[in-house]
């Protein structure tokens, strides 16, 4: 009986797919006919007919894009990156727990009395404040944190440390789940996922540099203090990279123009660190 039901369902599904494919084929063929006919007329009505053909042809992809956008705008954005550091778990953990001056995109970290921290990130001159709170910590295996909600952006994440195989040091895995409150922000966050992944990788590379060599690689010609005393004549300021530009677009979207974007910490939840 079950077999018969499955067979009927399978036949129905196949029949639906065939009809759908046939419909798409007919739509594409009619669109092509309209475009060719319209263009061959070489007059205004012809142009309108051709435009109608293009409209029919674009209907399917537009509908699919719209459905995908709707789906994405209801999902959180997952950003993750991993790196292997030739140092012990404890050494890496200690570097991560003293993040002041470590991350390229973070201008300052303010520790607060309530145990949370306010991170100021400057993107193309615009300060972005993000408040974070550590929810659970298991030295030296990792920690979990939450980004505070001000109605604009919320999220949580985890840093996990494991011994790398073959005595290669420590594996660091960072996962962040962003849950922007507005649908447009969610879409923007999805669009920026690759750029955010690379930015996160860059920050982990700096963790590795500091843990392995005791310093962070820099191509600067001079220190900031020296630079203030002596203005370079041949070099120009670094141009904005694509990932920075994308990040800026995200901030712009979030703040509806230049200004300060604030995201604050909210609640603390108990989460076990995965092993």
């Amino acid at each position, binding site marked *: 009986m079950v077999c018969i039901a499955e067979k009927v369902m399978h036949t129905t599904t196949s029949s639906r797919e065939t009809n759908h494919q046939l419909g798409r084929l007919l739509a594409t063929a009619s669109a092509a006919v309209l475009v060719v006919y319209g263009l061959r007329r070489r007059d205004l009505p012809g142009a309108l007919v051709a435009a109608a053909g293009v409209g029919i042809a674009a209907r399917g992809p537009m509908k699919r894009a719209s459905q995908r956008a709707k789906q994405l705008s209801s999902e959180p954005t997952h950003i993750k990156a991993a790196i292997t550091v030739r140092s012990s778990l404890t050494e890496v953990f200690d570097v991560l727990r003293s993040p002041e001056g470590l991350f390229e995109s973070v201008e300052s970290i303010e520790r607060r009395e309530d145990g949370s921290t306010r991170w100021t990130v400057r993107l193309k001159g615009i300060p972005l404040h993000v408040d974070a709170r550590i929810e659970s910590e298991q030295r030296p295996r990792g920690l979990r944190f939450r980004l505070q909600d001000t109605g604009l952006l919320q999220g949580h994440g985890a840093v996990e440390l494991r011994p790398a195989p073959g005595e290669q040091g420590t594996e660091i895995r960072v996962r962040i789940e962003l849950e922007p409150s507005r649908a447009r922000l969610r879409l923007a966050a999805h669009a920026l996922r690759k750029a955010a992944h690379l930015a996160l*990788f860059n920050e982990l590379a700096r963790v590795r540099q500091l843990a392995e060599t005791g310093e962070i690689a820099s191509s600067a*010609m001079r220190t900031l203090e020296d630079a203030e005393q002596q203005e370079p004549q041949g*070099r120009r300021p670094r141009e904005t990279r694509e990932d920075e530009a994308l990040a800026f677009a995200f901030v712009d979207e979030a703040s509806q123009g230049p200004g300060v974007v604030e995201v604050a910490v909210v609640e603390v939840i108990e989460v076990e660190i995965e092993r």
Partner: protein
Amino acid sequence: MKALCWYGKEDVRVETVADPGIVNPKDAIVRVSRTAICGSDLHLYDGYIPTMQRGDILGHEFMGEIVETGRDVRRVSVGDRVVVPFAISCGRCEYCRRELWSLCDNTNPNAALAKAGYGDTGAGIFGYSHLLGGYAGGQAEYVRVPFADVGCLKIESDINDEKVLFLSDILPTAYQAVEQCQPRKGQVLAIWGLGPVGQLAVTCGKLFDFDQIIAIDDVPERLEMARENGATVINMREEKILETLDDLTAGRGPDACIDAVGMEAHGTGVTNAYDRAKQSLRLQTDRPTALREAIFACRKGGVVSAPGVYGGFIDKMPFGAAFAKGLTFKMGQTHMHRYMKPLLDLVTRGELNPTFLITHRMRLSDAPRGYKEFRDKQDGCIKVVLQP
């Protein structure tokens, strides 16, 4: 200070820029005594390397005197005469410990850019794009050298600068290219491209027991230089490379092939026109003529060694031939620190003298002319050495 700055395709200028300073505790500042234009600098000059920015200081072959050190520099000190390798290595990461110095994990500040472009980051390189770190180069009066203890090779004797300058890049690069061929007695080595690295590959090849070294190019003075150095030469404008190699090796093909040309190969015929058209339209980044020929010519089970620089994507690669013949590929930036000291010993003992390459000596202020003459092979130009 004066430095040679990149401003765009075929536009390099000597400008006055701010002096470098100590940024990190393991830095040193080197006052440059000699610097050279590398064949790979021509890829920057011709605009084929991405992520260059206007005002970037060029140059990765240089040596000089240490004039300042950071507080954690121990092995070298102010007043030392040093040769600096083009690749910057930390000496502490997994790759440095495995002597894969040019794959260093920790010296590219733009690691994410390299991750996006190449899948992972290698070592930072002086004066060679922001993809590879954005470091200011050595065609300048002064250079900031990160991880000075790891990179700087101290020259203790009073040997002439020009004899040791090429330890900064092309001599170790040529040596590694030959060593990668896994040389055995009686083998035949073929080298495509007789620029500085190709010429030194002929020289380094003589340190091993090759039965024959075959050198391929189309520039008469370069062919003559290789012939004088003991190579059998093929002028690609006058002879068909594959047929001649077949003839010279009695149908076996060379046991090892070195592509010392890289991404801007000059070929002939339809394939060359196709490559040039695709590269100019940015449908491929590199013209791999020499690499294709090397793969096709190489003996079954042989090695193709590629010290020539490739930057991105290549088209029409005869990978079927490579697979069918079971070839081994060896490539990549040179693991400089592995070779510098042993090669310095050979140079000091007089067993190697790379100065025969130098055809042009100029002041740094004439560097733009040096680039043009080197690129256009004017006036028999093979290697330009600059003095700040």
